[in-house]
């Protein structure tokens, strides 16, 4: 009888632990359709057991305790908040996705797939449009690193990036105005300082006034006057990260997996705008 009581007590105590046994802890910043798409792509590629924690459901989620008690093999940080929270985790690998501007210097156990398409893709499109002087507004604290890559890519293509550093969203209209007559195209990068809800239309008004195309990062802006958009595929980003996660789970050290750009994107053009600007686009190869 005492033995039976002991077994029941053990089962009772271990049952939650047994129930929480998983490999991947998915930290999702909030319940968002975009995040959901990415998570679905991830789960499709990585079928390891996982637990999803939506941070917006908790007032203050204690990630350290979760990691200590639940001992996952991998943490997937989805979104900015999850990315920021997971920075503190050092003992297990952390992969991020759906983060526009990941921390510049990440710990070695951190890697992931960003949301910014490789600048060379944009350069290729701009080159295709025949633009030589490309105006770019950016906040060095946000997209400084990305801009460096862009400048390198542009230089390689013989293009000149006319950049303006934006410290505050209010500067955008004036800085754009400073580009008047000096650029052949505007490259709108997803910089939260340079591109805000209040200043977005300034790009397209400038485009309209200067009769130059705006190449942007989402087909959403085509409706506002953008000429060409290179849009990410959130589901594929999830799958891309899933592949990385699988490798990590298979034993590949995360330090050996560098951060990646989205491998898949779509190019869409507003033919009406292109026609007005008397431009044409030959879709470059690659996906």
């Amino acid at each position, binding site marked *: 009888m005492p033995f039976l009581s002991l077994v029941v007590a053990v089962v009772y105590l271990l049952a939650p632990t047994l129930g929480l046994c998983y490999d991947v802890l998915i930290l999702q910043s909030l319940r968002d359709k975009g995040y959901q798409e990415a998570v679905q792509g991830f789960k499709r590629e990585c079928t390891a057991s996982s637990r999803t924690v939506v941070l917006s459901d908790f007032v203050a989620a204690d990630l350290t305790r979760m990691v200590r008690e639940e001992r996952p093999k991998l943490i997937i940080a989805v979104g900015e908040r999850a990315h920021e929270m997971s920075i503190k985790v050092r003992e297990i690998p952390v992969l991020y996705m*759906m983060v526009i501007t990941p921390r510049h210097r990440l710990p070695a156990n951190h890697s992931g797939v960003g949301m910014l398409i490789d600048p060379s893709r944009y350069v290729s499109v701009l080159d295709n449009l025949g633009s030589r002087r490309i105006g770019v507004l950016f906040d060095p604290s946000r997209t400084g690193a990305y801009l460096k890559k862009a400048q390198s890519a542009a230089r390689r293509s013989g293009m000149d990036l006319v950049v303006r550093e934006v410290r505050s969203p209010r500067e955008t*209209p004036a800085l754009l105005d400073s580009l008047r007559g000096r650029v052949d195209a505007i490259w709108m990068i997803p910089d939260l300082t340079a591109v805000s809800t*209040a200043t977005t239309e300034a790009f397209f008004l400038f485009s309209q006034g200067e009769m130059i195309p705006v190449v942007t990062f989402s087909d959403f*802006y085509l409706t506002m006057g953008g000429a060409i958009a290179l849009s990410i595929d*959130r589901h594929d980003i999830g799958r891309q990260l899933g592949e990385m996660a699988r490798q990590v789970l298979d034993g590949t050290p995360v330090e050996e997996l560098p951060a990646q750009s989205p491998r898949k994107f779509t190019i869409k053009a507003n033919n009406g705008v292109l026609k007005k600007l008397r431009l044409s686009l030959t879709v470059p190869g690659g996906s």
Partner: protein
Amino acid sequence: MRRFPFPFLAKSFRFRLYFLYSATIALLTGAFVSFYVYTEFTGFRSALIREGRLLATVLAQNARLPLFAENREALWTLAKSTGRYPSVLQVSIVTADGKLLTQVKERTAVKERTIEMEVPVTSPGLVSSPDAVLLGHAAGDEDRVIGRVRLSLDTSDMRERLRKLIYASIGIGIAFWALASLLSYQILNRVTASFNLMMGGIEKIGSGNLSARVALDGDDELGRAANAINEMAASLELRELENRELQEELINAMKLEVQEEKKQVMARLIQTNKMTSLGLLLSSMAHEINNPNASIRFSGHLIEKMWRDAVPLLDGVRREEGDFYLGGVPFATARDAVAENAAKIVENSERIARVVQGLREYGVGGGTKRRPNLDVNGAVSGALSVLACQMKQQVMLKTSLCPTLPPVNGSQQQIEQVLINLITNAMQAFPNGCGEVVVTTALDREQNEVVVVVRDNGVGIEEETMHRLFEPFYSTRLESGGSGLGLYISQYIVADHGGKLVLTSRPGEGTTAQVRLPAAEPLTSG
């Protein structure tokens, strides 16, 4: 009922109608002008507000980016361009927290004459942030207010236009009213001409000229009314003529009646005068007869007395000397004849005196004192004695007097007068003067009345005359001297004695007059 405000014009139907028309047109015109001006005013105001809102909206749209960037220079340029519009007095652009970024003041105006409006400057909800776009969020639909554009609009121009509109509307309204009133007057003139014709005709008819007519032709209501009035006037004229004729007839009849009445009155006056003269004559005659009659009666008494004294002497003579003759008659015969004739002289003289006294009393009045023991038979005899001289040979007068009549309480003279009237009427009831009059007295024991009946077998009395027999001055023989008072007075006298006078007659068979007088004392039965 409400009275017309201008009494001196209220009598003119045309003017009242015209006044009402004109007032109604003025009222409607005023209402229309007011409505039109009000509509235009609201239209002007709405247009101004629309224009201002449009300008403010355009400005807000254009100022979105400069406002976000707080680019005062660009905002001033935009505000200035908006302020160039004539209706814009002042343009202000402020941030969402109220900080003034720029203000353009073109003119100043009285505050009451300005329209203030404010349009928010919004960041378009269609635009999402880059991270939201990358996450595939749909565009939001909530605009975020980042500032405000305030416009002051000048309403002076609108008021000037409105003033001109009011003047023009009032002018047009007055012109319309005048024209409509003029037309109304012309129409009313035509319409009420018929009324005036009718009124003229009616007034003429009303003033008494019934031969006047309403000169209106037509088959409409007025025409029919005029026809009806004309017919009425014709009818009235006919009645007037008939009335005039009847009046004339009535006047003539009255004249005739008055003449007849006058004739009757004159006859009565003459009769009365005659009666007065007759009374005087009777009085005079009585005086002239009574004197010699008194002498005759005295002589008769004297002769009687003297003969009475002489008879013993003459008897002695006859005894002594034998019979002798007196006046050719033997004394033995003459002895009683003289005494008898002397007595006759006295008796007839007294009779003459009584007749004269009766005539005198009848003529001059008097003797009306009632006696409780009046002998009706005596009254009958008195009446007959008065009428003795008038008795006609062809009329047979019969008397049948009850010897046991009780006395009555009455005036002999008055009863005699009644009987004289009745007997005279009876004697005059014969057209050819021949007939029979019977006077009887009797006693009605049941009624305790003394009855005197005067019956004739004359022409009788017509039915219609019977009803008027006792009317004063009614007589069928006024021309022949009748006074029309006989039966009237007789009935009065009999009634005054407590009796009654009853006349019964059958035309062609005669008349019976019955005088019933109550006995002075109740009769004993048996």
